[in-house]
């Protein structure tokens, strides 16, 4: 809605004693709750929650929502984030009451629709990735990474290979890769990239050995480049007794064209909230299914959705080698529904086309910008490309952050910035297949205009954004003296 007032108070600032936004039905059974509970178990004072009317609540969140950029606003070219349009039919499907109101502990006979969906989604994701079995349990990409690495660790342990505790991670990798390895109790060894932006084969060889548990790889990598030595890499890692882990966050760059399973990967996680069009929710929920090759199947978390001979779907807990559970119940089912609907809508051709157009669009951006920005790896990319400001721009003290902020004044969201770490001042641009040529052109035109400004009138770029509800925020103060809840606000 139209934003006429720039400032929206916090819920506690809107609270008026005595207001209520929701009224329960009158209690239809007798008694006083306190009579049933020991007094020492009771809270001394009511929880000091804010008090608002229904209209207060609706307006508050509506006004807040109007401070957000979202995929319906325009291109959301965050590299590595695959911000594609979220089809509304998926939302419809997930909100069907027979899905949304289904308790996870009902008898499986009452959940056959949900289980069928999960079973089939497991199969589809296995086919899409070229793996043999899939679990839907992990709640996000990093959770999938953790799950996959825990499976790898369990596998090595099961073979008595107790020394295999090292995980090789390229220096271009996403931060969750090393972090997940650490949480899984493994040791991270960083592998350098070579001049092509790909895994340095010599570096890899040097790091491989009897302690190698796995190599984690994103392919296309975070530069949007395909690791074309992948067959050789897989051979090397396997020969060294390690396994290959595929970070599937970038699957949009290869889907239907080639599959991690065929590249030699043993484990893969997917981000349904990227490749499979489920919305990102302002930071979640996601869903990070993990696929494995046959030899790792016994280690999958319990339960696995299975199909009995009599044709009933059920939850299989009888998996003695399982790593156990990585969360309650069966995964972010509501997210899985959306991904399932997406796969059914597009079919095999449609999914492949997604990849082709994601790649076409990224290369178009690269082609349009290459005369105006620097590209460390100036060649055909997959689903994203990584630009840098030129030397003249930097000489005028215009940095990546400034460009990102200035883009907002032109009406566009910024790319991912300062990542991957191996590209200084990186602008990591991922347009996805759902953007229009007009939007891509508008975005490129804005970046080109900003470059001009950076050379001619750098201050306007350095002071950007000018027209947003708030302007540049003081991160340093925020971190120095963290104010993490409204009680701490003082006079802010």
């Amino acid at each position: 809605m139209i934003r006429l007032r720039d400032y929206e108070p916090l819920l506690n600032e809107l609270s008026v004693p005595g207001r209520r936004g929701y009224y329960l039905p009158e209690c239809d059974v007798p008694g006083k709750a306190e009579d049933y509970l020991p007094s020492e178990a009771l809270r001394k004072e009511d929880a000091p929650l804010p008090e608002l009317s229904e209209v207060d609540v609706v307006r508050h969140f509506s006004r807040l929502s109007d401070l957000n950029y979202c995929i319906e606003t325009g291109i959301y070219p965050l590299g590595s984030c695959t911000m594609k349009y979220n089809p509304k039919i998926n939302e419809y499907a997930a909100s069907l009451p027979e899905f949304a109101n289904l308790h996870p502990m009902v008898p499986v006979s009452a959940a056959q629709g949900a289980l069928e969906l999960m079973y089939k989604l497991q199969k589809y994701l296995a086919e899409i990735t070229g793996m043999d079995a899939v679990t839907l349990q992990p709640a996000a990409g990093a959770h999938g990474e953790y799950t996959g690495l825990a499976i790898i660790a369990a596998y090595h342990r099961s073979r008595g290979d107790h020394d295999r505790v090292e995980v090789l991670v390229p220096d271009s990798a996403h931060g969750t890769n090393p972090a997940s390895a650490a949480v899984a109790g493994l040791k991270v060894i960083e592998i350098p990239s070579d001049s092509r932006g790909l895994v340095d084969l010599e570096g890899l060889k040097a790091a491989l050995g009897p302690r190698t548990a796995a190599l984690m790889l994103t392919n296309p990598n975070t530069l949007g480049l395909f690791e074309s030595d992948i067959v050789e890499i897989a051979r090397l890692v396997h020969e060294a007794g390690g396994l290959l882990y595929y970070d599937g966050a970038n699957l949009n760059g290869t889907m239907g064209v080639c599959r991690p399973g065929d590249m030699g990967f043993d484990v893969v996680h997917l981000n349904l909230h990227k490749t499979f069009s489920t919305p990102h929710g302002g930071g979640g929920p996601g869903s990070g299914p993990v696929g494995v090759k046959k030899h790792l199947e016994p280690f999958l978390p319990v339960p696995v959705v299975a199909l009995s001979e009599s044709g009933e779907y059920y939850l299989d807990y009888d998996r003695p080698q399982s790593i156990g559970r990585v969360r309650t119940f069966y995964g972010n089912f509501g997210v899985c529904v959306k991904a399932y609907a997406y796969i059914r809508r597009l079919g095999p051709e449609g999914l492949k086309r997604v990849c082709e157009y994601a790649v076409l669009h990224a290369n178009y951006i690269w082609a349009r910008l290459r005369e105006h920005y620097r590209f460390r790896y100036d060649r055909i990319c997959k689903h994203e490309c990584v630009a840098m400001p030129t030397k003249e721009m930097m000489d005028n003290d215009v940095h990546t952050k400034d460009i990102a902020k200035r883009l907002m004044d032109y009406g566009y969201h910024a790319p991912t910035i300062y990542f991957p770490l191996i590209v200084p001042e990186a602008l990591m641009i991922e347009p996805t297949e759902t953007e229009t040529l007009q939007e891509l052109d508008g975005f490129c035109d804005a970046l080109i205009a900003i470059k001009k400004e950076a050379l001619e009138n750098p201050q306007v770029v350095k002071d950007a954004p000018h027209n947003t509800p708030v302007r540049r925020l003081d991160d340093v103060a925020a971190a120095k003296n963290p104010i993490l809840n409204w009680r701490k606000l003082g006079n802010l």
Partner: protein
Amino acid sequence: MPYIPTTPEETRRMLSVIGVEKIEDLFADIPEEIRLKRPMDLPKPMSEAEVKRHMEELANKNKVLINFIGAGAYERLIPTIVPYILSRWEIYSAYTPYQPEVSQGTLQMIFEFQSLMCELTGMEVATASHYDGATAAAEAALMSCADTRKHKVLVSRAVHPQYRDVIRTYATGQRIEIVEIPIKDGRTDLAELEKLLAAKDVAGVILQNPNFLGQIESMAEAVQLAHKAGALGIAVFDPISLGVLAPPGEYDADIAVGEGQSLGLPLSYGGPYLGIVTSKERLVRRLPGRLIGATRDVDGKRGFVMTLATREQHIRREKATSNICTNEALCATAATIYLAALGKEGLKEVARQCVLKSHYAYEKLTSIPGVTPVFTGPFFCEFALKTDKLTPKEGYKGLADKGFAAALDLTPYYPEYEGAMLFAVTEARTKAEIDALAAAMGGLLA
């Protein structure tokens, strides 16, 4: 092409700007040998209308039962405005707020979530959300080890079995020892806890309140015991219960975690749910996951940013406090809207109705000849019953045939309570439904 706007003509234009002939040329760097030379073996595409019909058909294969099962997921009355507000794409289709100037909506909502979690629990800091209650509990276990530099965590056997499973999974990797504290009459045996703490090698003590069996624990005492032994007191709470029960802050818990599904999230067959992690201020830099902080912009205006990111994997990589990146922001927003709608009085009322309705059901069911309670202590909204005439499997199935999800079999989780069946009653159940359940149960036993 569905979901792809680019037309053939535009495709040609783009290819020519790039300087290649056809889309395949863009994949030239992929070695021939690993290319997929066939279409993926997936069902053929459906139009939107067909997808709609298909999804409805799938959904209809689920049976709608009147729900008397809790076990960590609760059917609740959800104010209509919660899903309606959440359906705004401004809220659900935004990314993690990497550019705060165009993400103040998300940032302020999550800041409000953090604040509400503090108000609710009486704790000092709360994170911007975790995957679910179980992973939140596992993160709390890891936190306690990091903070105390010890490697043993005690977990009550009355904690949700799936939570214990997840804690164990995470502990395995980290080489943390998990020891179970025994139960007595459905509650954590505090005498045993004291013994387990004697060696002072314990990092944290985890109790759930109300516990998985529905019983109310002596949290204050347990936390005191933990503190005396130099361990952190970790509470797993049910946020709704805090409408009447003492919050973790009151009984001095160091870390308090919980499952936030009850705060306005649909059951959705087990997810997405919401992990809540709160702690004392002094642990803030050990907290896993995202935190939103308040600050000012260059014009002096208040605004919100992601902060203390140095704990996170974007910056510290393998040295981060955890690997969590995408979390459950939308679920946290649901909880924020839910609590804003309920408010102080509303939350209290929900908790009270849970107590009253579950006790009404308890009276009704235990007045059926042959049905006896398994435990005798006070409970919040869940309770275990048993009967000599019926195995839990028969009860569960028999009631399902009559239209109820109820009588969860506790035997697999607690062989020592063989024959126990768990019931939950929330404010979403009416007296008439409870009476109908009792009648159905009576029928099964007759």
